[in-house]
């Protein structure tokens, strides 16, 4: 933002940086407004809650992806890692391990894979795109290696987590997954905004060479963001298994695209260095509301979701371009 003239008052500087996020917020409100004006049931607060319930896992994974994209990288493995986490937990539960142990083991998968991918990217200087592609293949392959069919989960802890409703007397409720997702969002927002790691992430995304010359730990931060992304994908996978109460080998195929789309719609620049967790939350909500609108409409088919997401992606990238955020 240094390109702005020094004479500009500080209030004029803020909106420019926050413009993509504000645009997403405006879009979200407009879409919600359209929904409310068109369909009576849309104004029910439960609709909003349902968007969170149905997209809790997406939110968590998108938070991890935000870290990676902020450094200028990309992580294609998240969907497969989430599926693998769900698959492994279903498989371990089926073989009779206690729920807590399964949870710990399953949550270790994502960060481990993320750490290894981060090492490959940093130490061997291979493109993140290729390394995480390999990670994606690996995790997806492991899913079917474990089982070709979906494994149901009957464990008490899992069903409780899945079915427990936190709500008010009028019957509106959220699931525990939503609370987990909120916790992840808050922690991530804190880390990005107020810790050394968060600043390093922004600095590396802005210009890795300058960051290195400034003495910032380039390698450690890079490996850390892929590990964080892996951890978030792992948590997302657990939430996914709460949501579906099963582990299916083909679940979450193409989810990485939804996640990347959500992050970009949320205003994070893909070359890194600019973006907010709050924007990502809004991006996920936009995707969720589109889905809800199309469900409410009934006459539109599911493929319209993809076309609309594509159109929104285009609109937001164009917006970022127009307001002059550095785009390679």
């Amino acid at each position, binding site marked *: 933002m240094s390109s702005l003239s020094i004479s500009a008052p500080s209030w004029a500087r803020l909106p420019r940086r926050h413009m993509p996020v504000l645009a997403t917020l405006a879009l979200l409100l407009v879409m919600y407004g359209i929904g409310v004006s068109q369909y009576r049931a849309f104004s029910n607060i439960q609709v909003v809650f349902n968007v969170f319930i149905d997209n809790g896992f997406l939110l968590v994974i998108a938070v991890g992806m935000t870290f990676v994209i902020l450094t200028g990288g*990309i992580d294609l493995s998240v969907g497969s890692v989430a599926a693998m986490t769900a698959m492994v937990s279903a498989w371990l539960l089926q073989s009779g391990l206690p729920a807590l142990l399964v949870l710990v083991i399953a949550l270790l998968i994502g960060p481990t894979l993320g750490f*290894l991918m981060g*090492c*490959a990217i940093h*130490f*061997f*200087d*291979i*493109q993140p*795109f*290729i*390394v995480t*592609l*390999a*990670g*994606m*293949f*690996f995790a*997806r*392959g*492991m*899913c*079917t*290696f474990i089982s*070709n069919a979906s494994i149901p989960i009957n464990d008490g802890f899992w069903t409780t987590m899945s079915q427990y409703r936190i709500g008010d007397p009028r019957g509106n409720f959220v699931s525990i997954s939503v609370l987990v997702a909120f916790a992840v969002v808050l922690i991530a927002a804190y880390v990005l905004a107020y810790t050394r790691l968060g600043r390093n992430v922004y600095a590396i995304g802005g210009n890795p060479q300058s960051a290195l010359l400034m003495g910032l730990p380039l390698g450690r931060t890079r490996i850390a963001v892929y590990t964080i992304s892996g951890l978030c994908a792992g948590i997302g996978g657990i939430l996914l298994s709460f949501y579906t109460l099963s582990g299916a*080998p*083909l679940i979450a195929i193409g989810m990485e*695209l939804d996640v*990347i*789309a959500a992050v*970009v719609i949320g205003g994070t620049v*893909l*070359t890194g260095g600019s973006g907010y967790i709050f924007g990502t939350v809004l991006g996920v909500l936009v995707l969720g509301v589109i889905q809800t609108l199309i469900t409410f409409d009934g006459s539109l*088919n*599911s*493929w*319209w*979701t*993809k*076309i609309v*997401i*594509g*159109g929104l*992606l*285009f609109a937001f*990238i*164009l917006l970022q*371009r127009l307001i002059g955020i550095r*785009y*390679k």
Partner: protein
Amino acid sequence: MSDAGNRFRTLLGHRLFWPVAVLVVMLAANTVYRPGFLSVEVNNGHLYGTPIDILRLSAPLILVALGMTLVISTGGIDLSVGSVCAISGAIACLYISRAPDQDNLVTVLTALAMALGAALALGAWNGVLVSVIGIQPIIATLILMVAGRGLAQLVAEGQIITINSGPYRAIGLGHLLTLPLAIFIALAAALLVAAFTRRTALGMIVESVGGNREASRLAGIRSGRVVFLVYVVSAACAAIAGFMMTANVSSADGNNTGLWVELDAILAVVIGGTSLAGGRFYLGGTILGALIIQTLTTTVYAMNISPQTALLFKAVVVIAVCLIQAPAFRAKFRRRRSGTPPPPQSSPQRQKEQVPA
């Protein structure tokens, strides 16, 4: 001795050495596992056998990868090829399915022309986004990758379009001079691209744009146009590949035609030695990469492993090939072999652990 050693070292250093070695090892492993693997027999005037099958099935991937090579050599990437395959296949099949006489050659040619036209328009869209508006390629093509699947389903109205057209089927399954027609189509495309890029200055211009777009522009090359062009070529290649894929099964499925082909194509390009950073491209390497991927897939099918688990092997191959080609990895490896103390980090071991995992 030193002469032979030198020659060996040059061979080892050749950029195609490792891909060729991988291919040979895979073929050898297959032959050991199934002695009839390499046998080819003449049946009904056509050649049949696993090697022929591998060639035939790799034709669409070769096509897509050819276009991808050009895009990647300009420093870009085209994620939308799979969607373009699906859209072009759906349009062609839709037109043919509505025609009164599906075996009519004119009908099929019209369908192909329409679908190719649509693909060129999509390629032009990508090209405009990247070269005129200046959006980062990975994200510009991501738009069409996401929306394109929706468009393909829109064209097909969510159905799988089944057709029964002899001429169209021939694109995928027909024969010419005892060999499958698809091989010739892929070969012709490869020769055409090679002729245009290696026999004229075009290839060098593409590489120079990939090396430094701004410098090329200042040197008098219309960088924008070159970038625009490679995306159009990539979409055209993808469209022909889409015809083959749909012709193979005589039906178009908006959801699954060309699914993940963009990843396979990028993989083929990288295995072939073209750097994702742009500035250099190797068409021969790309074709070799596509053959490796198809051989791997066929091997896995032949060994009765589920197609999804095949991804596990693909992951191993990707990591292995990328590591071998990564300069940083080679340097570390060489340093260790020549007796200097190993580097402080234990990362190479970590990496090796991941490969067999």
